[in-house]
Every structure is written in C-alpha cells, then in structure tokens.
C-alpha cells in the first residue's frame, strides 16, 4: 500500500456512484429484497418495539386482573395465555431481537465498513424472526396461544397436559427466533473480526462492539440448547417420542437442565448489550475514554464464561444434591465480581471525566440505581436457603424485572435517545425526554418494588388470582398504579420521537461530541455508510483522529466492495464483494414457515417445506449476472486477474 500526498478526489462524483451501487430498490419487491444493514437493523428495532408494546399491553391486563382478590376480569384460561405471551414476547420477541437490531445497525457503522458480512443471511434472520412472532400472535388471536408459561416446563407442556396447538406454536416460535438470533450472532462475529477499518486493532474496538461479540458467542453456544429442548418438546408432542416422559425412561428434569443451560446465558445475552450502551453513552458524556478498557472487555468475557456454569441456580427447588449447595452458591456469587468491576470502572470514569447531563445519561443513572438493586437481590437469590423461600414468588418477579429492565431497558431507552439524532438527523425534545425518564423511573419502582414485599408476604408467581385475607391487595393496587406511569412514560417517548422525527432541531453529524466512528458520518448516514473506508488511530476513533487522518482509496465504487482486514491488528488483507438485493431470503423464510408451521398440523409438511427450502437455497446461492459479467471481464483482462495457482493459504487465526 502506498501513501499519496495529494488530495485528488471528486467526492461528489464518487458519492453519486456509491449511491447508485448501494441504493435500495423501489416497490414492495424491492422492500422485501432489501439487504442493507441499516434498514434491516431498523426493521428489527421497530418490530421488536411493537412486540414490546404488545407485551406491555399484556402486562397491563395482568395488572388489572390482579388489582383485587378473586377478580373476574380475566379467567385462568386468558390469564395463563397472557402471562405466557408476556414472558415469551419480552424474552424472545423483544429483548434479544432489539439488541440484535442495534448490533446490526451500529456494529458496521462503528467498525467503518459498508455492510454486515452476510447481507442476505441478515435479511433472512429478520424475516424468520418476524414470521415466528407473527405466528405466535396469530395463534393468540385465534385463542390457541400457549399457556404453559414462557418456560414451558414438561410435563405440563407435554402432550398429555397441554392438548391443542398452543405449546407447538410456542416451540416453533422458539425455533424461529433462535435461528434469527444465531444468524445475527454469526454476522456480528464475522463482521467484527474481519471487516474492521484499518487501524482498529483488537484493543481499539469500541466497548459496545465487544459487548455484541461476547453476546454473539454466548448465543452461538446457548441458543442451540433451547432449540434442542423445544425441538424435543415438539417431537414428544407431535410424533410420540418419550424424551421427557418419565414412565418410558425420559426425564422432565432434562428439559429444565437444557432450558436453563440456555436460559441463564439468555439473561446475559439481554443485558450485556445494555452494558455496551452504557459505555458508549458514558464515554460521550464524560468526554474521556472509559477507565480500564482491558478490564472492561475481560470482565465481559468472564461473565460469558461463568454464565454457562450456573444454570442450576434456577433449579434449587428441584431437590439438588445437598453437597452441591456450597458450590452452586459460590458459582452464582462469583458473577457479581465481573459486573462489579464494570460498575466501579464506570464510576471511576464519571468521577474523573467532565460529566454532562442529558436524557441518555439520565437513563444510565437510572440503570445504575435499578440494576444495582437487581444485582443485590440476585446475590440474595444465590443463597440457597433464601432462594427456597422466595423462588417462584413475586420477589423473583421483582428481582428479574430490576435486572432486565434496569440492565437492559434503561440503557436501551438511553440508547434510543442517544442514537436518535443519528437515525433521523434531528434532535428529540429534551424536556419530553426527561419527563419520560422520570415517569419510567418512578413508575418502574412503584410497580416493582412492592413486588419484593409481596414475595416476602408469600404471593407466588403465575397465579391468576388470589384470595382475600392474604394482605396482598393493597400492594397489588400500588403495583398496578405504577404500571400506569410506565405506560405514560413509553407513550411520552413515542410521541417525542414521532414529533421530533419531523420537527426536531437538525442534529448535525455529532451532536454529543461522541467518540465512535458513526458520529463522523452525516446524520442520517448515507446508504453506503462510508464513501471511503476510514482509518483509526486510537480507541476513541473520532477524538484520536489526526487532522489528516488517512482514509482508504483504491476500492471500487461501482461494486459493493468491502475491505477485509486481519483479525488482530486490522491490517488490510483483501477485498470482497458483497451481494446486493435478493428476494431469496424472503422466499426461504416463507418456505421454512411452510415446513415448520405445517409440521404442527401434519408431519409431512416438514418434508415439503424442506424440499421447497432446498430449491430456495439454490436460488439464493446462484451467482448473479453481475458476478458472471465480472468473471468474463476478468478473463478478457479488463478487470484484474483471477490469480489461479494461489499460494498455500495463510491460515491466520482459526484452524
């Protein structure tokens, strides 16, 4: 590579070509064959947010039902469906996908590349997620929703005690959303390790991106477990296997082990991106780099490691070996340490930086307050004698809402406000932002703090009603009242965003003076992201850039060409061309729906779907005309050679 000292380019002309190369196609078919990461990322975010609203409405219905003892607002049938839907929606259709959406949207921007590594796969992941969610809600509206809880323990969810198609729907939804999760995980891992802009060595990857890498690895090793667990459930229900049937040699606890082997990492999969948001926001609002970068990254990895060995603490009440208690408690307590170190590093950062206040950072403060309470009750739950008392009570409900809303939702809402100017090019209203924050903080605590007390008073989870004389009534009224504030908060936020999107102040490229690469782009970013791949010379890309910070030249503008760099030091290695629009991801997700939905009703549909999917895959991988055209040009010598007789491959990092 050479350095040029001249500044020749005609940016406008190049930009016009790039615009044409990367542009979206018009029309419905164009929309369905979109593969740009920003569009797909936004679709994830919007879809997941809509599911969040649905889950919120379900929560509100539950709160109404629990307002008074022996209430008849919802019967047990409706209530059990609704709490199952609430849990499944929030875990599988909202929390994970929305974090993935942020990853898909932000990671390529933060890394200085044009798109994710496998754009078609990315689009496929979105549709499969969407269809999984729509299928669940369709069945819900047809009164055939699952009602065995979001955890679907067998034998309650098994063929004998849950007749109907509800649990099958649930199991299939799991397959769909987990496929989508796995797809995004693969995307993000490969994108991050191979497509970083030159100069972004491992130790300069933004912390948010690290959090997404850690999450992606956790997804790769955790989500297969729940797919297998729910797959066995489907098989037991649909074709009569006995994997969970004790009387034929199966074991219901096998399901719990596999479910929580996934379920515990799942919690981290949800809140680790939240930690990434916090780091991003704090960097911008303290004006200094995060204190203890290496410690922050390492503790994320430690959390991931430990997350896989403590699933058993969800099963303390199943009667585990007494001897194991000290081990399980110790392992669960150990998780506190890495998370604690992160929090201490943030405090150190705030302490030594120039702290400014705005809505995003207020959400971060909310995160600290709420998440720490959740962490403390988590420490309590790690203790087996305490867990035996409060397990499956409202105390646990309070605990994990403090962890998940504190650890994921507060940072997420902060992230909404933080990146809103980047998405839309306009600023949100600060006043409304702060109003929605206070409503959420107050509403959340009013809703969930009393649940700790309810749990200690003995109110179990998942009861559709309770009896008078249990002293639970008033606290339930309080909790329901808090929910009103939470609803108002979300409403305020939506209105704020909808209005500001059109009428907000123009934001400019970097309203927060933040440090990561996406803030060097105009808001909203152009369809191709970077006209020239940037380079970075420090952890805080924007702040550390020299006045003449180099950018990359010599790449094609008329192809979707991306720069591949080396894993460790991000030295330029080679270029690759990404595919453009393609209808096949959509088609493939439809054929998979035929197979997997159909199988619920008649097993042969699975085979039909598999054959159709095979055909769709052939279409998917069929080279485009453009690739063949390039090939012909190459043979004529008009477009670089095909370098046959390549040297012995350099095996770089992986075997």
């Amino acid at each position, binding site marked *: 590579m050479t350095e040029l000292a001249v500044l020749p380019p005609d940016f406008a002309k190049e930009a016009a070509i790039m615009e044409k190369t990367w542009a979206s196609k018009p029309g419905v078919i164009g929309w369905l064959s979109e593969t740009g990461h920003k569009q797909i990322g936004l679709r994830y975010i919007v879809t997941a947010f809509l599911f969040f609203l649905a889950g919120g409405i379900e929560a509100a219905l539950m709160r109404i039902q629990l307002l008074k003892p022996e209430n008849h607002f919802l019967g047990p049938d409706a209530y059990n469906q609704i709490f199952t839907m609430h849990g499944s929606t929030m875990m599988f259709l909202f929390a994970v996908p929305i974090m993935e959406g942020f990853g898909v949207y932000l990671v390529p921007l933060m890394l200085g590349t044009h798109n994710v590594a496998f754009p078609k796969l990315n689009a496929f992941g979105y549709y499969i997620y969407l269809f999984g969610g729509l299928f669940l809600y369709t069945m819900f509206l047809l009164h055939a929703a699952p009602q065995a809880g979001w955890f679907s323990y067998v034998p309650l969810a098994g063929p004998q005690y849950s007749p109907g198609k509800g649990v099958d729907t649930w199991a299939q939804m799991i397959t769909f959303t987990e496929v989508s999760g796995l797809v995004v995980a693969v995307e993000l891992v490969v994108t991050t390790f191979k497509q970083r802009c030159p100069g972004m060595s491992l130790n300069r990857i933004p912390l948010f991106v690290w959090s997404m890498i850690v999450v992606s690895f956790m997804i790769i090793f955790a989500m297969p477990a729940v797919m297998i667990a729910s797959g066995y459930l489907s098989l037991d229900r649909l074709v009569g296997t006995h994997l969970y049937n004790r009387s034929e040699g199966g074991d*219901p606890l096998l399901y719990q082990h596999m479910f929580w082997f996934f379920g515990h990492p799942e919690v981290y999969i949800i809140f680790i991106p939240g930690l990434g948001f916090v780091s991003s926001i704090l960097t911008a609002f303290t004006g200094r780099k995060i204190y203890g970068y290496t410690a922050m990254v390492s503790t994320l990895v430690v959390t991931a490691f430990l997350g896989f060995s403590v699933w058993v603490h969800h099963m303390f009440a199943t009667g585990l070996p007494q001897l194991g208690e000290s081990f399980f408690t110790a392992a669960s307590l150990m998780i506190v340490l890495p998370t604690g170190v992160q929090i201490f590093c943030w405090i150190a950062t705030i302490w030594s930086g120039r702290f400014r206040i705005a809505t995003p950072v207020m959400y971060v403060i909310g995160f600290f307050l709420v998440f720490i309470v959740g962490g403390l009750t988590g420490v309590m739950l790690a203790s087996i004698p305490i867990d035996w008392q409060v397990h499956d009570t409202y105390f646990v409900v309070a605990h994990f809402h403090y962890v998940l809303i504190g650890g994921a939702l507060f940072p997420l809402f902060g992230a909404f406000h933080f990146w809103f100017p980047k998405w839309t090019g306009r600023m949100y209203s600060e006043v409304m932002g702060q109003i929605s924050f206070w409503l959420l903080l107050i509403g959340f605590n009013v809703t969930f703090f009393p649940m700790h007390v309810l749990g200690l008073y003995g109110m179990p989870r998942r009861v559709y009603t309770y*009896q008078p004389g249990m002293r639970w009534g008033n606290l339930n009224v309080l909790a329901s009242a808090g929910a009103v504030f939470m609803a108002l908060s979300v409403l305020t936020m939506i209105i704020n965003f909808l209005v500001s999107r059109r009428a907000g102040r123009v934001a400019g490229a970097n309203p927060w003076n933040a440090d990561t690469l996406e803030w060097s782009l105009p808001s909203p970013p152009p369809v191709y992201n970077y006209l020239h791949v940037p380079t970075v010379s420090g952890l805080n890309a924007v702040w550390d850039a020299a006045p003449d910070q180099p950018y990359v030249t010599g790449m094609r503008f008329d192809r979707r060409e991306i720069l591949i760099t080396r894993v460790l030091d991000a030295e330029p290695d080679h270029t690759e061309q990404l595919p453009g629009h393609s209808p096949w991801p959509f088609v493939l997700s439809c054929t998979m729906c035929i197979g997997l939905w159909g199988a619920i009703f008649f097993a042969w549909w699975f085979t039909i779907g598999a054959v159709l999917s095979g055909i769709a895959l052939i279409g998917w991988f069929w080279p485009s005309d453009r690739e063949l055209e390039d090939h012909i040009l190459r043979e004529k010598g008009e477009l670089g050679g095909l370098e046959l007789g390549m040297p012995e491959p350099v095996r770089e990092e992986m075997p």
Partner: protein
Amino acid sequence: AAIRGRRRAEAVDNPAHDRRLGIFVSTCAAVTIATLFGLLFSSVATGNAIGTFGKNKPGQIEIEVTGHQWWWEVKYPDALAPANQITDANEIHIPIHTPVLLRLDTRDVIHSLWIPNLHGKRDLIPGRVNKFWIQADRPGVYRGQCAEFCGYQHAHMALTVVAESSADFLKWKSHMGEGAPTPMTPAQLRGQQVFLSAPCAKCHNILGLDAYGTLGPDLTHFRSRPTLAAGQLLNTRGNLAGWIMNAPAIKPGTTMPPNQLSGQEMSDLLAYLETLR
C-alpha cells in the same frame, strides 16, 4: 468520506489520576470479594442447618404428599401395619417439636410444596421422590400452597398445616384411622345412596363404603377439613352445595364435573356428607 469536523476532547487522562482510579477500583473489588465470602459462608452454614436438622433425631415421622392438578393428597404411612395408612387431602397434621420428613411425589405435572412459615419450597417431580424436613415449634395453622406453575388452577392449590401437641395429633390420627360414621337419619341414608349411585363414588374414596375412587380427594373425614377445593372455599354447607352442583363454574378446569341433582337429592347428599367428620 474522511472523518471531518472532529473535535478532540481535552485530555482528561493523566497517569497519576489513573493510578488513583486504579486503587479505587481494586479496593472496591476487594471489598466485594470479602463480602461475597461472608455471604457464602453464612449461606452455606444456614443451608446445612436447615437441610439436615431432622436427620438422626429420635421420634421423627414421615408423611407422603402427592400433588394432583389441583389438590394435595396426604398419606401417613404406617411402617408396622401398612393397612393402617391414613389418607387425607389438602391438610397436613403434624405434632409440634417433632421433625417431619415429607416425601413428595406427583401424579401428573410438576408442583412445588411451599409452607412459608415452616420451610422453603421443594418441587414434586414425576418419577422421583423429593424429601425435606419441616418442624413446627408452635401449635397453630400454617398455610401452604403450590409454588410451581401447574396449569389452570395453580392459583387455587393451597393446603393447611395443622401443628398440634403430640397428644392431639395422636388423637386426630386415630380418629382418621376409623372409617366413616354410619349414617343415622333417613336423609343421611338416602344421601349415602345418592353418593354411591351418582358419579361421586367413581372418583372419591370413603373408608368403610363401597367407594374406592382415587381421582379425587379422600372424603372419609372430609367435613373435618376447614376448606373446600384446595383452599379456595370455606367448607360450609352452602359452598359445598354450589361446588357439587357446578364445580367448573367455581374452579374452571377442575376435573370434578357438574352434577345434575334434584333439590331433594342434593339436600340428602349434603345431609350425608355432613356426617363425614
């Protein structure tokens, strides 16, 4: 494009400052570790104490609790004379100051027995027997309930634990061991016939009567129990009549079917059931 319009933040990081921050973070981490150790030790010590207190103590008794959707079956096995086993439902009688070993099993799905004032939870899992110890030191009535979601009526699956002096307990036990009292009045006799001819006897057992159903709770001394339908209703005559007429309306999902009884049959049946004390 190249990165344009960048502003460099003032350098806030200086080494001396960062050293202080390092000390802060490592001190906090050390304190965290120390605290966790304290918690670990106290937790394990407590766990051991409550997990094993009944072992090797004299005079312990064993009770078998079986979960059903949505009620509890309670058995008092008699090791010496298995035929003397007592069967009860939705209430556990225990003597005070005595360690009681509960053996937990389930007939259908997973349930979890939780008597908050006596101990934490333990799941009832198909195909395995979980055991745990409880002990009451004060006489009284303790409420317990199912803590693991078990379907439609998970909310209505409570039981009561009656802790009483050993003498009272033995008295209760011997009373329970007797069969049902013989009906005296004509109404009661007619009621007994209703019980046997209507579907009741298919599901319920009454000791000393030609009724051996095991799907529903044992009714031999059912009027001595304080509640109906696993803690949902007080065991009053009115509630009982409503329950027999149309149980699913009161407790949707219950396996107890509605019964088409004439007014006369119902009052006879109630008269008979009144005797089962």
